């Protein structure tokens, strides 16, 4: 056992006390922190952006253009336009539209006759005008305001834009034309739009989560994001150290230090030591991230929303997933000569580990579905599936959790058995990299 611990200790020290590990460990929280500060500036609306140019309108109804004119051309302040959009779309979506629109548009409306030649009008879009660029041509349908006789369906409009048009301009024009058509429809029916909006608006309320300790405002999306956060931790822990096991095994094999080690320890001792060392590395990283997560929850007074029983479960399922994936990674590392050769053998494992990410949404949304139950009993993804279900709003019954753990243990035994056979033979095999069939033959021969 002491030799196993010696190997584990060396793996831990050789990895943890490197700049690459420290940087790698801190880079994710650093990126999140930087993005939370810089993101709004990078991806938010540009306050200096304004739609400026000419918008041509073909309006056979004759009712939309005045609305568009009054909304855009007569120097309507941005605040008024904002109010219109808010009234029409509600605070949430309207806000995003306004953000996308930015400052109030400075449009010149070019009114075209109803019986115009459309192709000629389209050609107008290709005419360059640096002072007042030709932004778009809106062709209002004849039935956009009033339905055709004998019909109930209302029409819309066609929008033509020049090539390489700024998306923000297009969104702004679409929004303006849409508002104008709606305004014309209200006016045609003698309705007060503001009154209709008032009548059709019920403000959204924030629910209150009733817990054992105290009632608190529900945090939108918390129950949705929590399973994802736990799966991310599990994935990071398994893949981070799995990758480490793969690369260190390949390095030891290619640098030929492996035979020196095998003169001192058995292949099983070497494998066990490496697994333990890298598991400790992952646990260190996960502990740091968990501590950071708890600190964030505390700072937002959300500490009580987390079910702390999830953390031991996270550790149990991490150990199961780590030993399964990690031992298989070591088997691959021992069988190949370099990282390039490892790619083909890694592909099935990588694809397997993508499955939980694909199934995150359906499992979180319906943790008791047949799919969710099957995934939580199917190694090696059962750890991910069960953890997603445990962290969801409707955790599974305890017997299912224990059954999943038992199946996970069997998966570990199988994976370690297979990996140890491949590891023992693969370590001293050089030359042509094996395919999956060769690995199976090694297992039979070992």
């Amino acid at each position, binding site marked *: 056992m002491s*030799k196993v611990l*010696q*190997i584990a200790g*060396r793996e831990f020290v*050789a990895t943890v006390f490197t700049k690459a590990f420290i940087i790698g460990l801190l880079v994710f929280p650093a990126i999140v922190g930087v993005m939370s500060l810089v993101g709004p500036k990078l991806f938010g609306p540009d306050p200096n952006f304004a739609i400026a140019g000419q918008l041509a309108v073909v309006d056979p109804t004759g009712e939309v253009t005045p609305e568009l004119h009054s909304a855009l051309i007569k120097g309507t302040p941005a605040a008024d336009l904002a109010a219109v959009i808010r009234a029409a779309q509600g605070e949430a979506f309207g806000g995003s539209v306004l953000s996308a629109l930015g400052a109030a548009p400075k449009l010149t409306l070019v009114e075209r006759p109803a019986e115009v030649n459309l192709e000629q009008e389209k050609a107008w879009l290709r005419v360059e005008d640096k002072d007042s660029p030709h932004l778009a041509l809106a062709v209002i349908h004849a039935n956009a305001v009033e339905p055709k006789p004998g019909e109930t369906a209302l029409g819309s409009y066609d929008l033509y834009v020049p090539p390489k048009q700024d998306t923000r301009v297009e969104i702004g024009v679409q929004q303006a034309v849409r508002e104008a058509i709606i305004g014309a429809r209200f006016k045609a029916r003698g309705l007060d739009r503001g009154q209709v909006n008032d009548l059709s608006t019920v403000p959204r309320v924030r629910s209150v989560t009733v817990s054992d300790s105290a009632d608190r405002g529900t945090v939108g999306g918390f129950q949705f994001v929590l399973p994802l956060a736990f799966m991310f931790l599990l994935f990071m822990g398994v893949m981070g150290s799995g990758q480490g096991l793969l690369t260190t095994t390949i390095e*030891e094999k290619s*640098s*030929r*230090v*492996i*035979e*020196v*080690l*095998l*003169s*001192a*320890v*058995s292949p099983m001792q070497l494998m066990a030591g490496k697994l333990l060392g890298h598991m400790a590395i992952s646990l260190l990283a996960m502990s740091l991230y968990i501590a950071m997560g708890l600190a964030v929850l505390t700072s937002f007074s959300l500490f009580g929303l987390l079910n702390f029983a999830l953390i031991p479960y996270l550790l149990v399922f991490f150990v199961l997933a780590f030993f399964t994936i990690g031992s298989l990674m070591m088997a691959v590392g021992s069988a190949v000569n370099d990282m390039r050769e490892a790619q083909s053998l890694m592909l099935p494992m990588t694809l397997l580990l993508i499955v939980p990410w694909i199934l995150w949404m359906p499992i979180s949304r319906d943790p008791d579905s047949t799919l969710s139950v099957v995934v939580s009993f199917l190694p090696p993804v059962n750890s991910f599936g069960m953890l997603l279900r445990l962290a969801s709003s409707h955790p599974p019954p305890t017997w299912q959790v224990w059954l999943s753990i038992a199946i996970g243990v069997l998966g570990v035994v199988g994976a370690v058995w297979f990996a140890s056979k491949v590891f023992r033979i693969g370590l*001293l095999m050089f030359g042509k990299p094996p395919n999956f069939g060769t690995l199976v033959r090694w297992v039979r021969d070992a």
Partner: protein
Amino acid sequence: MSTTGAAIELRGVTKTFGGTTAVANLDLTIPRGALYGFIGPNGAGKTTSIRMIMSILFPDSGELKVLGRDSALDAKDKIGYLPEERGVYRKMRVAAYLMYIARLKGVPDKGLSERVSAYVARVGLAGVEGKRCEELSKGMLQKIQFVAAIIHEPDLLILDEPFSGLDPVSMRQLREQIIAEHARGATILFSTHVMQQAEEICDHVVMIHRGRKMLDDPVSSIRSRYDPRALVLEPLDAGADVAGVRALAGVESCERHEGAYNVELEPGFDVAGAISRIAAALPVARIEVKRPRLEDVFVQIVTDRGDSADAARALRAELADQSPQAAI
């Protein structure tokens, strides 16, 4: 299987890889305290045999005992091993690497740092303990790897091609260290394809070819068994007529070779008497017994065992490529 005090005992050990037999029915007994040379051309099966002795590979059939145990796994702390394909953790510092290997070999922590420094100094590398392994030259690394093999003072030391890649000075230093380990009491099994090295160090030679043992004898026994019947003759006058020598009784041939003459005697003829008669027949600057080269012995054995003349020639060419000519 006997339970004598042998350091290594192999009985009928066979190992195949796919359709290739790497080692076939190998019997080998190496007594404790011996210094054995394990020789043969590349691909003969030496490394496979050693890996089986070390329990890194396992035989398909046969029995094996190392230091009285059924597996080297049970005696790894008493075995030092310098593999042919050797490496280090390049980013590790020399002292840390040696301490790590020593701990894996069961050396206690107490006094380990001092032991590492002493061994590093012993191979002439005092002061490199703090350097990273990647900063050392190939020759220096090889010495560090040798230290890693002996730092736990093993009872059995197995060295697979220990001199490959070393310059003559380093080679001599390493030879002295091997002899010192032997003097300490360690049993040494030393594999090489350079037969001269085996001759210089070992007192017993095991020859292996195509996985089969061809020879297992003390060097002195080989000398007497393959008694020479060839002389090297250098006349005082380089242009002297050697017809008189050719006419002597017992002389089979006398052919010019590299500024001298090779004199072949008839089988069983008295060598000392032939030397006296040649010296009487012709003024000589030098006349001596042409000692058989180890590779000659090896090729002769291979040929005697039924290999074709072409195969023997190919083997001789292979050995000539690999090693300086060695005489026993």
